[in-house]
């Protein structure tokens, strides 16, 4: 058993999985509250990556930053998260709120419209060329190792900050008042509004947090994998959606688990199966189907109760 290969695959799986988990969290949060699949979520992630790039260059750029590298990275994250959170709130207010009582498929097309709009606006404003984060100069390529396990700094950063954000989110939902309001609203929107909860504000907060997480995911992805361009949200959105469903859509711990699982599945499939990389999407989907057959509500989802 080649342990070093196994650990390499596990680390890369966890890294990519953390990014997917953050994207999936945004999907799950919005779905839990609105029963809406936010198609534009992947593009918010893309905008986050670009916002991080701009922050990096306004702070001097990767080669000669005007502050310590760690501070620059923190500021990049903060800027991207706030910008994307705001963007998410705006999108909700103008594209989804008027459709709150409409048939469920209408906001899907509205989301599609937003997605087209964001992608092509990014193309128009930022241009078609790829932009590089140049992590090599910003953070360096140091690698830490524990026995057979090798972790580069960006990978470590991604996994640790993703875990941190997930813990923060869980605490927010479980312990704070707004979290309680979110849980109540996702359980029964009407009853929650009758209990005096401002449903509009709760939904706006949900979108803010979900989109902020997507923005963070965008910056993380760019730090580890380097290149950003206007079309990068498409694949991430698709994978994030798959991860959310695997974990049980609507469930937050499910989204986290689902994301990590998808990342690991892709990694192991590529590493161990013949022509694994060519067919990795198929292997992940096959895993998804297997899970759905065994547990139709996803790994941690609640079974759908059909009231007659």
């Amino acid at each position, binding site marked *: 058993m080649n342990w070093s*290969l196994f650990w390499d695959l596990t680390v890369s799986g966890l890294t990519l999985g953390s990014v997917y988990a953050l994207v999936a969290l945004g999907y799950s949060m919005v779905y839990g509250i609105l029963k809406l699949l936010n198609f534009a979520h992947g593009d918010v992630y893309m905008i986050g990556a670009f916002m991080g790039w701009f922050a990096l260059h306004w702070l001097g750029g990767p080669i000669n930053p005007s502050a310590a590298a760690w501070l620059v990275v923190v500021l990049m994250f903060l800027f991207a998260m706030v910008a994307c959170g705001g963007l998410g709130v705006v999108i909700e207010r103008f594209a989804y709120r008027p459709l709150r009582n409409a048939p469920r498929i209408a906001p899907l097309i509205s989301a599609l419209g937003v997605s087209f709009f964001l992608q092509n606006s990014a193309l128009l404003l930022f241009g078609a060329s790829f932009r590089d984060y140049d992590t090599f100069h910003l953070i360096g*390529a140091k690698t830490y190792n524990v026995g057979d396990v090798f972790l580069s700094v960006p990978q470590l950063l991604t996994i640790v900050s993703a875990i941190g954000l997930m813990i923060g989110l869980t605490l927010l939902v479980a312990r704070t008042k707004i979290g309680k309001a979110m849980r109540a609203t996702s359980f029964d929107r009407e009853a929650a509004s009758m209990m005096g909860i401002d449903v509009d504000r709760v939904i706006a907060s949900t979108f803010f947090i979900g989109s902020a997480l997507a923005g963070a995911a965008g910056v993380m992805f760019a730090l580890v994998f*380097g290149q950003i*361009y206007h079309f990068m949200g498409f*694949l991430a959105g698709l994978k994030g959606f798959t991860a959310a469903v695997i974990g049980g859509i609507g469930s937050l711990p499910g989204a986290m688990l689902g994301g990590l699982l998808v990342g690991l599945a892709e990694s192991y*499939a590529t*590493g161990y199966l013949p022509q694994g990389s060519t067919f990795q999407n198929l292997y992940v989907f096959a895993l998804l189907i297997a899970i759905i057959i065994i547990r139709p509500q996803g790994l941690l989802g609640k079974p759908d109760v059909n009231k007659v």
Partner: protein
Amino acid sequence: MRRRATAIAALLGLAALASVAAASATVDRAAAPSAAASADSQLISCGKTVTMGMLAPITGPAASLGKLQTDWAKFYLAAHNKNPKNKHKLRIQYGDTVLGGPGGTAEAVKAAQSLGSNVLSTIGPAGSNEVRATTPTLKNAGFGFVSGSATNTELTTDGTRTNYFFRTVPPDSAQGTSVANFINKKLKFKRVYIIDDQEAYSTGLADTVQQKLRAAGVTVTRDGVSQQQSDFSSLIAKIPRDTQLVYIPWQLPPKGKAFGDQMRAAGKGSVVLMGSDGLFDDAFAALGGVYASSFPTSGSHPVVKAFKKAHGGNPEFFGAPSYVAAQVVGGAIDRACKDGKASRAEVRAQIRKTNLKNTVLGLNVRFNAQGDIRGGQFGIWKATAGGTFLPVG
């Protein structure tokens, strides 16, 4: 009963109105409907400005490639129009083919159909499948079309496009042969890993190289990634440490760079990395020590230098064949327009007679009967530690 009749009459009237409106709103401003024969030979007077078409991916996942191609073509046009010896100015009508986008090759055909009747000839399309899909449209309209990036070998060998389609970039068979020979005879490697990006350009090259290497007794493992992918770490983990060379015939230099970076991060930096002409770019060269195949272009060519200066230092050679394509088309139009009038058939014949010396590609450009550059071949380049490509074979 009467109300119903009125309603029906009103609807029919509306229908008639709608049809008239549709007709007048969409009639092509420039000319009447053109049948196959007349479009080919219809004489267009070459006034002060003559129009050529350019089909390129302006939006969609391949927009970065489209930008490179249009930048180089625009550069040629600017130089041409500044030259007082040229009687006519050239302008480009663009068609967005959205390569790799949701509409698929239908977008390319729509773009080809959108070329106005005053367009004499076209550059592009960029993708090999796009060339296939647009062939009937462009042939019916009588266009000669010159692509700067469609390298699939069958495009010129299957005979469907002879005398209409030309390309200013050598085909995959030439490139694959050069690469395989270099790996086998020069580097003498025995264990090679080939990774394609699932697009037609890539798999074509990968197939050719794989076949030739296997025939020479080299151990070849083959795998693929998606063109959208940026994370290669799991695939890299799988590549055995004793692999001598990894061949990545990809189109997007940033992805090639990302792959190289991730190889190094995984401690496999000693494995030689080789890209195809799609990766012949400063971004990829920045890795240092990598190989790429490309036409024998040169950084000291005056046009390259001028382009570099105008575009902030980065020549980005992927678009260079589009410059030559613009040169070919522009030159053909100039020659056909000598008598003040030109038809698409004339321009096509003039393209066939192209004879350019010392182009940006480092080759002389004359077309053979199939539409390929005569004697077009690829050279192998190696990047120095400082990130510049130097020819090695």
